[in-house]
Structure formats: C-alpha cells, structure tokens
C-alpha cells in the first residue's frame, strides 16, 4: 500500500465535500466522485459525518442576527485574555491578534474620550429575530424575538432596561459597578451570573437564573431583596400586589430546553401540540391553529427551528397523520380520520 493518507488530509477533503454539497445539487459526476472517495478509505465516512455535524453547528450563525459585527468579538477575545489562554503564547502565531488588540485599544481610548456622558443605547429585535449584543465589559445580552432593551453604562452602575420581550444576560463581574436590569418596577441585581428575564404580554414577568445568583428587589427604593440561586425561577406578579415573588426550582435540562431559542430553536419534550403552537406564535406572523381538540393534546418532542412554523407543522402532520392547510396567516392542522 502506498503512503497512508493523513487524517488531516481526510478532514480537509471532507470539508471540501460539505462545501460542494452546500453550493448546488451535485452533478451525476460529482456523486460518482463522492462514492469513489468514500469507498477509498473507511475513515472518510467518519470525517464526512463530523464535517456535516460541524456545518450543522454553524447553522446557528443565523441567530447572530444581521447586526453581527465580527470586529466586536475580535476585540473581546484579544483584549481581555481569560485565564484559559496562557499568557506566554509565542510570537508568530499570535501576532495578528496582538495587533488587533492594539488597534482595539486605540478605538476604546477614542470612545472614552468622546463619550464622557454615556447615552442609553437601544437594541431591538423584530418578530422571529434573535440578536447577540456584546457589551464593552465583556458581558453579553442575547435578545429573543420581539424584544427591546436599552443599555446605559454609568460610573457606578451598569443599567439595562427591558421594555418587553425576553433576554438572556451573561454578566461579567465588576465589584465597582453592579449590573442592574430594570423590568417593570422591579430590579434584578447581578454580579457574575447568567440569567433570563422574560416580560411577555399575557403572563407574569419571570426571571430564571442559570448560573451564579441574582438579587431581586420589588421596587427601586426597596432595600429588601430576594436572592435567587442557579436553577431557580421567580415569577413576578404585577408589582401593585406586595410581597408576592414566587420562587421555584427548575431542572437544568428543562432550563436548557427553555434556552434553545438562543440557537434559534424551540425544544419540546412532551408538551402538548397546543402549547407548542403557542410557543411558535411568538416567532412568526403565521400562526399554527390546531383545529382538533384531541390532536391539540398530543405530546410533541423534538428540536425545531423557531421561526419556521411551516417546517414544524409539516413534521407534526407527518407524525400524527394530520392534514395541513395553509393560508397567508394561518396553518391549520386537522385529523385526517
């Protein structure tokens, strides 16, 4: 046997095939070539599966939103090296990043000179959109569909106001400047934590903590605070009613499913079709109507693209043997028998 092909070269060819598959439907000749390539070495099947999985992973890039600006992430990775990356990285490989860091530093300097008075900055998403907002201190906010926040960084406080919708906060620690989210009259105080704040039209406002902990106060001047640990959820009824913050635990896997929207997905595990349909309603103008009450009670499990109610409905129709009718604003599902 001739010199064995390196596994790197196999990986390279696999990536080439995925790009080819993505470009356009393969010609007969391409398919022939792919068949021969796969047959040539058993490792190639494995490499192709892995490359396709990585390609799947990159699909969530659409959730970064049209405002995604790679430059702001360059700055973050190079400017604030985490303890994970060894400081003694040798010159050659790292030089481009160091250079970017220097450039970013000068940008920051210019910014801090011109923006002595910080204006609140508004970010908003439309129906079905998701946007990741990196902030100057390394914290990030991910906005779910139809959400609006405004951000104001001051000397003593990092303030964010959630007007409506749902946002996921990942907050970096800054002992001198607490991170405060205002929602209704409530305040969420955080240091280093990851949490969700959800303010939707028909339900109570909710705060869910994924990691770290946060403190809740009922009103801006209220000294009494409720502490919320990781994997717990607080339900906040209208603040006119006093002393009524309800706290319960939430299982980590349930929490991860709840957060699937950050990847532009909706995850269900046994929820009824009716509940799933209403979950989709938040992400699109096209609403799913389940006409049959028995069908509406069927349990749904799976991971679906949030702003694609049609794709979800097709899958449901197939599984439950339902009929699907589409109008401009509705998708109606009915039993066929």
């Amino acid at each position, binding site marked *: 046997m001739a*010199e064995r092909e*390196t*596994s*790197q*070269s196999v*990986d390279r060819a696999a*990536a*080439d095939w*995925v*790009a*080819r598959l*993505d*470009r356009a*439907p*393969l010609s*007969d000749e391409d*398919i022939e070539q792919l068949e021969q390539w*796969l047959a040539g070495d*058993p*490792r190639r099947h*494995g*490499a192709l*599966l*892995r*490359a*396709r*999985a*990585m390609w*799947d*992973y*990159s*699909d*969530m*890039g*659409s959730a*970064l939103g*049209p405002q*995604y600006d*790679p430059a*702001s*992430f*360059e700055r973050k*990775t190079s400017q604030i090296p985490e303890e*994970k990356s060894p400081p003694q990285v*040798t010159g*050659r*490989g*790292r030089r*481009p*990043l160091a250079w970017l860091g220097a450039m970013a530093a000068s940008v920051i300097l210019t910014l801090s000179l011109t923006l002595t008075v910080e204006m609140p900055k508004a970010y908003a998403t439309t129906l079905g959109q998701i946007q*990741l907002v*990196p902030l100057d201190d390394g914290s*990030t906010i991910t906005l779910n569909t139809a959400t609006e926040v405004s951000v104001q960084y001051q000397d003593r406080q990092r303030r964010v106001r959630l007007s409506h919708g749902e946002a996921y906060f*990942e907050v970096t620690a800054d002992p001198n400047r607490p991170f405060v989210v205002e929602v209704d009259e409530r305040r969420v105080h955080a240091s280093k934590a990851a949490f969700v704040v959800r303010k939707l039209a028909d339900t109570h406002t909710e705060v869910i903590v994924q990691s770290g902990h946060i403190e809740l106060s009922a009103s801006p001047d209220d000294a009494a605070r409720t502490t919320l640990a990781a994997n717990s959820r607080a339900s906040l009824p209208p603040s006119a009613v006093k002393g009524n913050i309800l706290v319960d635990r939430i299982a*980590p*896997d349930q929490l*991860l499913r709840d957060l699937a929207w*950050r*990847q532009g997905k909706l995850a269900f595990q046994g929820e009824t079709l009716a509940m799933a349909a209403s979950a989709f309603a938040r992400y699109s103008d096209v609403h799913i109507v389940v006409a049959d009450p028995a069908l509406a009670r069927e349990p749904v499990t799976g*991971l679906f693209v949030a702003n694609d109610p049609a794709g979800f409905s097709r899958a449901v129709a197939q599984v439950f043997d339902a009929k699907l009718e589409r109008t401009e604003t509705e998708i109606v599902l009915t039993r066929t028998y």
Partner: protein
Amino acid sequence: MQDRTKANEKLATLLGDAERPHWFLRHILPHEAMLRRWLARKRAPDLDIDDIIQESYAVLAKRERVDDIVDPRAYLFQVAHSLVVRNIRRARIVSIQAVDDLELCDYPDEAPTPEQNAIARDELQRLAEVIATMPGQTREAFILRRVRGMRQRDIAARMGLSESTVEKHIARGLRWLADWFVDGGKPVAETSKKMRRKQRRPDGRTGNQPER
C-alpha cells in the same frame, strides 16, 4: 427528471439519514475532547489518535440506525476501544501484558451534566468569536453564508469572486471551525495549530506532508 431522482436517491444512500449529523453534533461531538484525552493516556505505541477517532466516527456513520444507542457516549468509547485493541493486535509488536491492560475498557464513566451535554456552554457566543478569528475573505464569505443565509452563488456575485472560490472559502471556514473545536473550543492561530499537529504524530509523519 427521472435521472435526477435516481441521482438523489444514490446521494441519500451515500450520506445516510439526514438527521444523523444533528444526532452526532448533540451526542458524540461533545465527548470528542474527552475521547482524545483518554486515547492519549493509552500506553499504545504508534497509536494515531486522529485515525482512531475518524474510524470510530465511520462506524457511527455506517451504522444502520443510531436511535437504538441508549448511551451514545459509552458506545463511542467502546467503539474506539475496540479499534485500539484491533490496531495493537494487527501491529503484533506489543507484549501480551499491554493487550491485557487494554482489554479493560476503562472509559471515564462520570455522567456529563446537561451543561456539558451541549457542545459548549455558550455555543452562540463561541461561534461568534471563532468566526471573528477567520482570515479576511473566508470570514466574509462564511458570514454571508451562515449568518446572513445567502447562497454561495449570490455570495460569489456580491464579492466578485468565482463560485468555486467561494466554495473554497466556505470549506476553509468550516475547517477553521472544526480545528478550533479540536482545540477544545479555544481559537488558536494557524501556526500553532500546525505545530501541535506535528507533535501529535508519534511516527514522524506530519500534517504538512503533501496532500492529494
């Protein structure tokens, strides 16, 4: 039209079921780093870790179905383990003792937390960061394709490149992402990546040898 359908059927047989990459992404890839470390600890001479991993994945790719695998992680380690044993038997140079050691499938059995189950804790954030480290045109093409959802043909028109050049950029971006993933999700510069690969090969072959 008939021919097209036939071609598509053939392609479907070659690629297997459409859901498998997603299953693989959720259930196998998160354990790759652990598998790599585990293989590195094996006292087996001439063991090419990358080869074993690719061959293990090939077993998963060719399997008729995967939904009957109750514990994908345990299964992955078992497959890799049996491939290591097979390689050692084939090489016929190690002592019986070494094979005996390897017979013990001592894969780490701590259950991953749901957090570890995700490919990384902050997938979107990390994706945003790794795309940002891609080189010039590759980055632009990759963003247009994966963030903006444009087709390769339209990207070619927009960037004033040929379609095959765009295809090469997309492939390169994907490799960038995959290499970054091998490094445990920490973006590294290309040079250090190559050096690491050189070190990883115990037999003196390097990743820089002529390819195809």
